[in-house]
């Protein structure tokens, strides 16, 4: 109840932020700019549209998550609005969870909007509609599947941004979270380096890195989605990947709650 109240207010606050709409607007623009690929063959063009679109959603989704999240709690403290909230019968952890849920709503809205925009652009391609509208819609709806999976991984990113913003400041939080995001996005490459490397120490280091750092790369299921085929065991993969994202977010949010409980505001 209290949590839901704070979540709703947070959602409202974020949707009033110009920077979020600007980022979303640029992302939608990139998604919509598919006609620049008109010099490619239709099948190739489709791959590019999907790939560019999903890439834009990945990057701009992360950008929105970072910029919107990192400022939330510091702003509350700076403007002292947090005093009016925490002096009411609200636990510190409820405040943190409420903020987190609010952000989740914001991210969900953004991702769904971007995902649907991309779907519309794809459905606008003549070569896609040729196979029949409903069939094309069903097969391309996996864009939304990829977008939804990304949603869970952006939760990790937001959880990081919240934690860092409680421990440091907005700007430091953005930088640290960005760093984590970049390293975590390379998880596939880190994993391949383990096999390439000869030195056992390096291997152990890389493996530890791979297991400790949040693997944002897990959200990258774009290749099969782009080429429209379903790898074996995808459903299980999605469940595992989502469970991973939620557990990781749980850890971070727990730490955030404890850190915030001990913070003087």
């Amino acid at each position, binding site marked *: 109840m209290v949590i839901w109240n704070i979540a709703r207010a947070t959602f409202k606050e974020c949707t009033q932020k110009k920077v979020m709409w600007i980022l979303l607007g640029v992302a939608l623009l990139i998604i919509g700019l598919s006609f620049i690929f008109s010099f490619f063959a239709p099948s190739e063009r489709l791959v590019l549209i999907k790939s560019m679109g999903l*890439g834009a959603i990945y990057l701009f989704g992360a950008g929105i998550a970072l910029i919107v999240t990192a400022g939330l709690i510091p702003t509350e403290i700076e403007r002292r609005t947090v005093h009016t909230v925490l002096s009411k019968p609200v636990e510190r952890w409820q405040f943190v969870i409420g903020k987190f849920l609010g952000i989740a709503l914001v991210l969900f809205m953004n991702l769904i909007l971007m995902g649907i925009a991309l779907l519309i652009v794809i459905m606008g391609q003549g070569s896609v509609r040729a196979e029949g509208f409903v069939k094309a819609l069903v097969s391309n709806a996996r864009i939304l599947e990829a977008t939804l999976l990304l949603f869970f991984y952006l939760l990790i990113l937001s959880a990081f941004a919240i934690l860092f913003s409680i421990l440091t400041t907005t700007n430091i939080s953005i930088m640290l979270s960005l760093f984590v995001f970049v390293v975590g996005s390379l998880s596939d490459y880190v994993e391949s380096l383990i096999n*390439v490397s000869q030195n056992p120490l390096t291997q152990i280091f890389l493996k530890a890195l791979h297991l400790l750092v949040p693997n944002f790369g897990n959200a990258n299921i*774009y*290749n099969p989605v782009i080429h429209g085929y379903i790898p074996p065991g995808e459903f299980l993969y999605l469940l595992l990947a989502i469970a991973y994202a939620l557990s990781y977010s749980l850890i971070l949010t727990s730490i955030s709650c404890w850190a915030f409980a001990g913070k003087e505001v």
Partner: protein
Amino acid sequence: MKRRLWLIIVFLLVILLQLKVDTYRENYKPGGTTSFGYISREVLATALMGLREVAASLLWLKIEDYFHSGEHEKITPLIRIITWLDPHFIEAYSSGAWHLAWNSEDWRLIPSAEEFLKEGIKNNPDKYELYADMGWLFYDKVKDYEKAIEWYKKAASLPSPPLVKRMLAHSYERAGRIEEAIKIWKELVEEGNKLVERNPNNFEAIFDRDVAVHNYNMCIIRKVDRAALAKKPKTYYLTYQVYRVSPRILQVRARTNLPELSRIRVSLVDADIERRKKESLGWQLMNVTEYRDVWPQVKGGEMKTDIDLTDALKYPLKGESFILALSFLPQTQPIPVQDYVGWLGEGMTGKDVIVVHTSPPGKKMEKSTTLTLEEILGQQTLLLKEVK
């Protein structure tokens, strides 16, 4: 304390989940390994940040540039990177293999083309395209029709256009397995008829059906005609002389009674080519010399062709001795020639004719001689060898 326990438990869960996730990750990762030699930093960054397929497409544009500017040596590594970034970019495998096998005009690269297609097939086992490409590699380039049959069979078992099955039938014809070819043409005729019946205005289906009917008829006719050849085979001979025109340029002059327009295969390779190939890892074939020419034609009882080895990159001539061979392979001959010698040389006999296999009966002509490095590199023009 409780907190720490809670964190440890959830974190263990996270690690377990990631380990499990990793077992599925193969399906989504870039394919295989590669080096980043030719990739610009921007493209690499694009790729790393989740825009792998965009990066692949951008690089694909670059291939075009290299192709037009003639920087062929840059194309193959670039294609490797593209397929690494986007292992489902079928066209990249297709073009890459084509580039290796045909465009580079370097016979040493054919195994690489084959490996490359195999990798593509591994990544895209459900698409017919690369199986068909593999079939075409063996049908058209290597002219190993049994292998072509193998691959076209796999391609045809997947959803694919009628052309694939037609190529399978042609491969059977070339391999001399005429009954199997006829069976497929018959199937194609029946399938075509069904399609045309369903829609009499489907011109594509009508065309496909008519092609099948024509080929079916031709097969039946040739089956009878060529069976007759085996009853009274003709004696054929092939002799030749090898001249050195200038250093690294040889000339072969052959005399034969083979039918007009017969194609004679000319090859000049390291005497120990197999060992050399094994020793050259991957793409480095610096020590292998492999010259092959499948085009020389018989005109007026003669065949004359130059062996130009001046390209020292392609023909490094690192060994001490080389084997020059001329061969006549009945399967690879144009149809009018086959009408004289049969699919597999059934109509051939004589001391120059070798039996390759007996079931189905296969014959060929092949005569080789050894040349030393000095013979190839020498200065004056002279007759090096006479092969009777």
